[in-house]
């Protein structure tokens, strides 16, 4: 279909189907998360979700055979832009949507796709990602959780940590060691584990922002049927790598979370600091910092556009996307710090009616966003990747 025609159709459909109440930013309590106990904060949220689900647009790029939208990446981008244009909420949140589903399409067998993808599209199960372990973070391939084959089952023992939504999720896609003798990366497999299996226990971990975003999970003799192995045994690293690409792409497109204040920094500066007699922001140093930050954001935004434009062009520069996770997350952290400077005392309220919602959120975001440059590969690891893959610098020196 012609792009402009598709855009028009999407625009009209959204106009007709997205309830007005679903066109405002959603805070945590207003988001719809997948799960066996799928719950809706309001009738409108349910209606919006059901309409999008029936179009397959909860997962735009999953083929229609599995209930998805069957859109190509370009059409999916049009849909996303049109949703943004009217402020339409994401109808459904789940780690399975943006990480596991693409991996199953690439590496899963037909039975696995038929079993898991339709559930993901319909939001009937929630997924979490079990990669990191207490002893394996940046050096992920050092992971120790063991899976030993016993007849038609694997028996899993070990621990995962920093698992986002680990306490709430129905299923986990995870990396386990199936061959302890092989070189690090060649003894790892990709396994799907039902979290209600006996032997799985979970404990929430509290973050500096006050939330319990993630959890520690322990496995004690957890029995997992072999049909839950994705790709071949000991070839899980390939799946993991493919999936990480989606994760980083997602994180570099991350334009702020549900808690982000509704004001821009410029608005906040004008509001909280104000202009002097000459029409300049009354705090000269903050003015300088604001210029720098706005320029940085603008540069990142233009570069994101350049990456997209290149995808569509004939000769994309494959080095360019490698910088995006680093620059977007580091810029976001700087923005949060500046917001806190601008708000002064008013940006330090932890909770209570003495502060506006935006003021409280600003502080929580400052604290939460410190994780952006840690999760999904730390900033230092990103710089390693740039120097190795973009600049092709020699490896193996002092580090």
């Amino acid at each position, binding site marked *: 279909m012609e792009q402009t025609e598709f855009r028009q159709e999407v625009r009209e459909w959204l106009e007709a189907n997205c309830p007005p109440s679903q066109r405002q930013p959603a805070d945590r309590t207003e988001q719809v998360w997948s799960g066996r106990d799928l719950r809706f904060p309001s009738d409108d949220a349910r209606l919006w979700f059901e309409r999008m689900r029936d179009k397959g647009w909860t997962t735009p790029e999953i083929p229609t055979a599995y209930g998805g939208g069957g859109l190509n990446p370009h059409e999916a981008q049009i849909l996303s832009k049109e949703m943004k244009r009217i402020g339409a909420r994401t109808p459904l949140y789940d780690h399975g949507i943006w990480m596991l589903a693409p991996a199953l399409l690439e590496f899963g067998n037909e039975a696995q796709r038929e079993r898991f993808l339709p559930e993901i599209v319909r939001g009937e199960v929630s997924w979490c990602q079990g990669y990191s372990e207490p002893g394996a973070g940046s050096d992920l391939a050092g992971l120790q959780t063991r899976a030993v084959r016993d007849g038609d089952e694997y028996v899993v023992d070990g621990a995962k940590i920093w698992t986002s939504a680990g306490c709430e999720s129905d299923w986990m896609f995870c990396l386990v060691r199936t061959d302890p003798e092989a070189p690090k990366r060649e003894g790892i497999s990709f396994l799907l584990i039902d979290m209600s299996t006996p032997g799985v226990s979970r404990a929430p971990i509290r973050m500096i922002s006050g939330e319990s975003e993630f959890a520690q999970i322990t496995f004690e003799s957890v029995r997992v049927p072999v049909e839950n192995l994705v790709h071949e045994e000991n070839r899980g690293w390939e799946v993991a790598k493919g999936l990480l690409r989606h994760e980083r792409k997602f994180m570099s497109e991350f334009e702020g979370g549900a808690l982000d204040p509704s004001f821009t920094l410029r608005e906040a500066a004008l509001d909280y600091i104000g202009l002097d007699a000459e029409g300049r922001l009354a705090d000269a140093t903050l003015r300088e910092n604001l210029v720098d930050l706005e320029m940085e954001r603008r540069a990142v935004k*233009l570069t994101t*556009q350049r990456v997209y434009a290149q995808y569509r062009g004939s000769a994309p520069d494959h080095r360019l996307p490698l*910088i995006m996770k680093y620059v977007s997350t580091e810029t976001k952290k700087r923005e949060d710090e500046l917001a806190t400077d601008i708000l002064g005392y008013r940006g330090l309220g932890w909770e209570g009616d003495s502060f506006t919602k935006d003021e409280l959120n600003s502080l929580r975001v400052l604290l939460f966003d410190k994780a952006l440059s840690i999760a999904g590969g730390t900033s230092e690891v990103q710089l390693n990747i*740039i120097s190795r893959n973009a600049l092709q610098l020699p490896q193996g020196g002092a580090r």
Partner: protein
Amino acid sequence: MTAMSQLMGDEELQLRGAAAEMLRKESPVSAFRRQRDDDCQPRYDAALWSQFGAMGWTGMLVPEAHGGLAFGHRGVGLVCEEMGRNLVASPFVATAIHAVTLLAHGSEALQAQLLPAIVAAETTVAVAVDEGRGFAPQNTAVTAVREGDEYLLHGTKSFVAGGGHAQYLIVLARTSGSVGEMQGLSLFIVPANALEASQRETLNMVDQLDYANLSFEGVRIPLSALIGEEGGAGAYMDELVDVAAAHSASELLGIVDALFDTTVEYLKVREQFDAPIGSFQALQHRAALMFTRIELLRSVVLDARAALDEVREERAIACSHARVMALEVAQLVGTETIQMHGGIGVTDELDVGLYYKRAIALRPTYGDRSYHRDRYARLSGY
């Protein structure tokens, strides 16, 4: 901001290829080094200037009616990038970019007289604006006083790029108002031979290009020498600031690309502690950081050129942004390149020093970093 501004079309890719090839062949850094060592005058290669004309580059901003190509700022910017990459010495920027931008406000007769000659690379023009330590047009003290059917000029312009050899000068002078105001400024075209030899003091500056202090004391010019409205130059200068900012950023981007390539190459070949120094993580991370800065800069520069061509509302923001970021990145990459080369980095033998000097020479022209950061803030309403 449109996505298309971030991609080059076939025409642009062709132009870039042609410019890269021509300049690498006809004007490599070694040519500039020779010119510097022999102290050649003029401080550019006249034959190369003719070639700029033959390639059509001199006419990129000139309307077709005056023999130009009207290729636009995307094209000019590409040429500037390649000039930066090869450290080309040329009257191109002053003549075919800055002067042409201002001449667009001149009378039909003036345009018909000068533009075709510029397109043919048969003449050169320098723009004389600055009088003090930096760019501050509101502080213009040079005056033009109307006497009968002439203007009488008083005062001195300093650090005029191309001012030593240009055949024409465009002069910013005060026709009314007082120092400190943007109102009351006017632009005039003055044939360089209206100045006595003693009124041109050529300067030796860090980049070894052509600069001069010019005294206009007692120079008389006809009324027809006025460009545009009397007292209306403030608006023309604002436009020139955008154009100059975008293209100095383009030139700096070319310089930065050349320096960074040199650095990455050196990190791969230089060995210490029995390993290539590029295998040390302390250097890897600094190189990777430079790469992120350079790629962000590239996006911003491409956008600034497109904003000029599309006459976007946002163009002043886009151009000031490009200039600030180009200066920041050039400073980073310039100093890091020297540092990562160790002792050889501070020798004249290496081209790195020549690039660094050209880059710092571009700092004050048409607004330094403070000027453009401040402009960005004002344009943004704070």
